[in-house]
């Protein structure tokens, strides 16, 4: 160390997809600062959608050119097969979520105003809308891209925070049920900060052990450094806590139902798909690249976490009476199923590839279905806004057979019924786990799926076989954007369920290269 810090070399071409998103977010902030209020929405929307689109095109281009095999930015950011697959998935789902976000009526006019106050009334009356939503979403998406690609624990932490901070804000912007929304934002922020502290603390411990933050170097130091196992164990476990929190794995799942319920539904859709995918990408990278040599150590712990998460998510969901909370618990249970895939990794590269590609496919399948399901939730409304209570959904199938049918289809996909994408997702992960020797876990997974099927089907029964309430909610005529989201999600769920091979192949070739070191 001679006191000078050399300027890092940055491969802008490899990082371009991420940079486009961050750049657009900054442009969005400028728009927010300089454009007149009435123009902002009209400017934001094309910028946001276009940046996501360009970023996606860049990824496709790079994929066709050839997946890089070396980490960029001096080894800090790994742009490899899995990262690019995850980026692409997140971008598509973010694009879809933005279509939901753009619908009027989800976001408060004046977020700072006290709920129910005169200022809020005034803002509502003026038809004010929070256009900051767009740059915030772009920042969050940028963070979601950085997090799973980070090849360095500090960069990972930066990614984690860039992803989370805008989401904390976005959670508090719901137009209706303001208190619930603000409460959700507060809870999410406090607990998120708490878990970030764990992550950071773990990072420090690991640095103490390995004298490096680079994942590859940490991996290389395992077994070389002697007598410091205490630091390694505490550090590994703490980093695990931070990552498992973002996934919503038990026992760190408590925030999920409260936050998913309170957040504006389009934001919930973005979180349920994008954040989960990003967090799984980061989890896989950290635990394979850095702590892969320690797998005999973390695997049993994850074993227990996965069982707890699957059963906990499924059992909690049974008594839920709120559709968004039910979907939140369903998301927890799905996180548990995905953890099975993480545990299914073994020493043989072929086994790793099949487990990884299973997880990637599962993430795509689940992401589309969950965005579609939350999009449907935005459409079922009564006087107080979206009708969340399940009793309000009774008889929906009689009044809006198409919408209820699509929703029932999504629920069946969550349950993993054949001919839906959920079936192949579960199948890919479970199969990898069986060949990886985690049969008991798969049995628990199957039991949890059976329990989960109960509450999915219960909603279907409620929609189609119960008499509609006299003052039941009405289904709003969807805007073009929302209709497109529901249609796209349903299409993806069908296509991935009937004809999954292309995406399976894609996931397989992405997983082929595994994570660069």
């Amino acid at each position, binding site marked *: 160390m001679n006191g000078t810090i050399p300027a890092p070399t940055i491969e802008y071409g490899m990082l371009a997809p991420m940079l486009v998103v961050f750049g657009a977010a900054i442009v969005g902030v400028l728009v927010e600062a300089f454009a007149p209020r009435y123009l902002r929405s009209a400017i934001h929307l094309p910028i946001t959608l276009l940046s996501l689109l360009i970023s996606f095109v860049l990824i496709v281009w790079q994929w066709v050119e050839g997946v890089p095999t070396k980490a960029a930015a001096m080894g800090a950011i790994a742009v490899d097969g899995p990262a690019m697959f995850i980026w692409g998935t997140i971008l598509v789902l973010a694009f879809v979520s933005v279509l939901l976000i753009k619908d009027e009526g989800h976001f408060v006019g004046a977020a700072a105003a006290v709920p129910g106050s005169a200022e809020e009334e005034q803002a509502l009356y003026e038809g004010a809308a929070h256009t900051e939503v767009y740059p915030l979403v772009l920042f969050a998406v940028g963070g979601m891209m950085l997090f799973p690609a980070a090849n360095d624990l500090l960069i990972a932490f930066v990614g984690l925070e860039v992803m989370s901070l805008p989401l904390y804000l976005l959670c508090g912007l719901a137009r209706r049920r303001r208190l619930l929304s603000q409460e959700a934002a507060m809870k999410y922020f406090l607990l998120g900060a708490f878990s970030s502290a764990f992550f950071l603390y773990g990072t420090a411990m690991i640095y103490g052990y390995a004298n490096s933050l680079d994942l590859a170097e940490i991996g290389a130091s395992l077994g070389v450094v002697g007598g410091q196992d205490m630091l390694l164990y505490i550090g590994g476990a703490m980093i695990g806590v931070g990552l498992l929190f973002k996934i919503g794995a038990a026992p760190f799942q408590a925030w999920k139902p409260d936050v998913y319920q309170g957040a504006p539904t389009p934001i919930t859709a973005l979180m349920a798909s994008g954040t989960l995918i990003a967090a799984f990408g980061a989890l896989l990278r950290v635990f394979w690249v850095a702590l892969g040599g320690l797998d005999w150590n973390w695997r049993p712990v994850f074993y227990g976490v996965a069982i707890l998460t699957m059963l906990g998510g499924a059992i909690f969901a049974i008594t839920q009476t709120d559709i968004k909370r039910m979907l939140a618990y369903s998301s927890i249970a799905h996180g548990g199923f995905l953890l099975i895939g993480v545990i299914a990794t073994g020493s043989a590269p072929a086994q790793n590839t099949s487990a990884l590609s299973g997880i990637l496919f599962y993430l795509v399948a689940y992401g589309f279905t969950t965005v579609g399901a939350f999009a449907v939730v935005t459409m079922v409304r009564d006087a107080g806004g979206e009708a969340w209570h399940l009793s309000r959904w009774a008889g929906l199938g009689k009044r809006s057979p198409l919408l209820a049918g699509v929703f029932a289809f999504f629920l069946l996909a969550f349950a993993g019924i054949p001919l839906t994408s959920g079936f192949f997702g579960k199948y890919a992960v479970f199969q990898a786990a069986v060949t990886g020797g985690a049969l008991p876990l798969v049995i628990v997974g199957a039991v949890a799926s059976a*329990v989960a099927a109960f509450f999915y089907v219960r909603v279907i029964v409620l929609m189609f076989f119960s008499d509609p309430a006299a003052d039941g909610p009405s289904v709003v005529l969807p805007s073009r954007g929302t209709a497109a989201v529901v249609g796209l999600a349903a299409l993806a769920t069908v296509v991935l369920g009937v004809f999954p091979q292309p995406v399976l192949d894609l996931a397989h070739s992405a997983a082929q290269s595994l994570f660069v070191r």
Partner: protein
Amino acid sequence: MEAAEIASITQHSGGAIGAAWLMIALPLVGAAVLLLGGRRTDKFGHLLGVLMAVASFVVAALAFVQLLGFAPGERRRGVSLFEFIPGLVDKVGLLVDPLSISFCLLITGVGSLIHVYSIGYMAHDPNRRRFFAYLNLFVAAMLLLVLADNYLALFVGWEGVGLASYLLIGFWQHKPSAATAAKKAFIVNRVGDVGLLIAMFTIFATFHSLTFSGVLDRAGDASQGTLTAIGLLLLVGACGKSAQLPLQSWLLDAMEGPTPVSALIHAATMVTAGVYLIVRSGPIFEGTGTAQLVVTIVGVATLLAGAIIGTAKDDIKKALAGSTMSQIGYMVLAAGVGPAGYAFAIAHLITHGFFKADMFLGAGSVMHAMNDEVDMRKYGGLRKVMPITFATFLVGYLAIIGFPLLSGYFTKDGIIETAMEHSAVLGWLAVLGAGITGFYMSRLVFMTFFGKKRWDAKAHPHESPAVMTVPLLLLSIGSIALGAYLILGNRFMIFLSPAVGAPEHLPEFHPFSAPGLATLALVAIGAAFAWLRYGAAEVPATAPRGSFLTTFARRDLYGDALNEALFMRPGQWLTRLAVFFDNRGVDGLVNGLAASIGGSSGRLRRVQTGFVRSYALSIFVGAAVLVGAWFVVGNL
């Protein structure tokens, strides 16, 4: 008696035979359009139904003409349709040969006439369209049954006609008796179907094929015991569908369906499917004397049982149903005799199709005129009011009792002679059956058309419209002339021989053989006795108590009582036991599990307090546990 060789199958394409699938497809499309089209098709539904049946008949007739153009040895034409389950039935195809084309002509010909008749008969029924849809469905399924070139497709048709039969028996489902009868028919048929299924399993296990060519050509390879088992199982299937003992009980109740249904399905076509099955599977039965013996015994027993039941019924349709049972018994008897009897079985089947359909439609015409009254004790003297119905019915009646030179005379006489040659006991029992037939059919005619009027006050009988009488006239022409045409000069036997084989020595027709004369004498005695009891004497309006024999016959020979005691009650006990076990055992387990999951969910829910501090605490504790677990595992 040595059988002549069955011709091998020639692959065929083109012409009406190549388009044989149209026969099945046309009525199937009709059924689909009428069922899916809903009320929109109400206006023309019946016309479409008739059109499809007639179009199917035209295809059948053209195929028949084309078939006649080939040399007799090349008259078995295979038409392959599509590939199917490899190994089981590689290719599904149709087999157009003299046997199947005979059935096709009967099904579509008589079927079309009954379709036309139904326009009039069902004119006032609000669900007439649905009725025609089911009739079309039946025709399609029945044609598949007889045209299939393998047992699997045959079974599909077999189940299809069972379904159509169920739907049509229960067509007036608002009547509890009709709904029950439909269920009864379905369940009894299920017994037979299981027999057929197991027969198919055994066939496949033995021959590794289900196609007729793959099975029947190699029937000789199988052991005697296997063939007997297959034969008896096929017979169980045949008994279910053809209402033979011991699976006869559903047919009498099936008369709850509309009368055209009784004529088409429960007299002319579907109930003869069992005869078709036995004749088609001829090589299997010919390889096993035991199975053939059982077939003939079942046939004779049923022909007597049906006749006895027919003597005691006051319901005109049930009397005719008993007669149907009995006549199919004759066919089964002939089919059990072997190649010598096949042609007579099928010939009698065809002529019976005409004269029984004729009489059923006649009965329908009478009921139509009498406000749907079926009790013959409330008829009487109708010959003057309904001359056309009476005349056509009379033709059918004379045909069935075997009045010389009418259809039934030739075909039934053929069966009796063949049976006599096979075994004197069977032959004389068949003769006895003919005598009883003479009695009960005469009783029916005398009670209905002769004697004094015993009508209800509200009844105003009238002749039926032309749409109903024209089919009657056409059917009675068949009842008069068809028998002589088919039997004289062994025309039909020679025609069928490529499909089913033929005896070495063709039989000659002896009009004055001993059994023939004895039959005529017994029939005359029976008819005379009926005249004394029901023609000349007064018919009481309510049935007299009668002797125990009468009661025996009225109660269908205690067939239902037997079924109830042997199967229904033990079955009910079994289901009760199963329900008990299900409630206490399975449900207890399942409900207990569900309750415990639900309960734990409810209890766990309280953990979700909504307070950030408790969430943070749970994260903290979780992290501690995680670190602890990590250590424990790391130091193992």
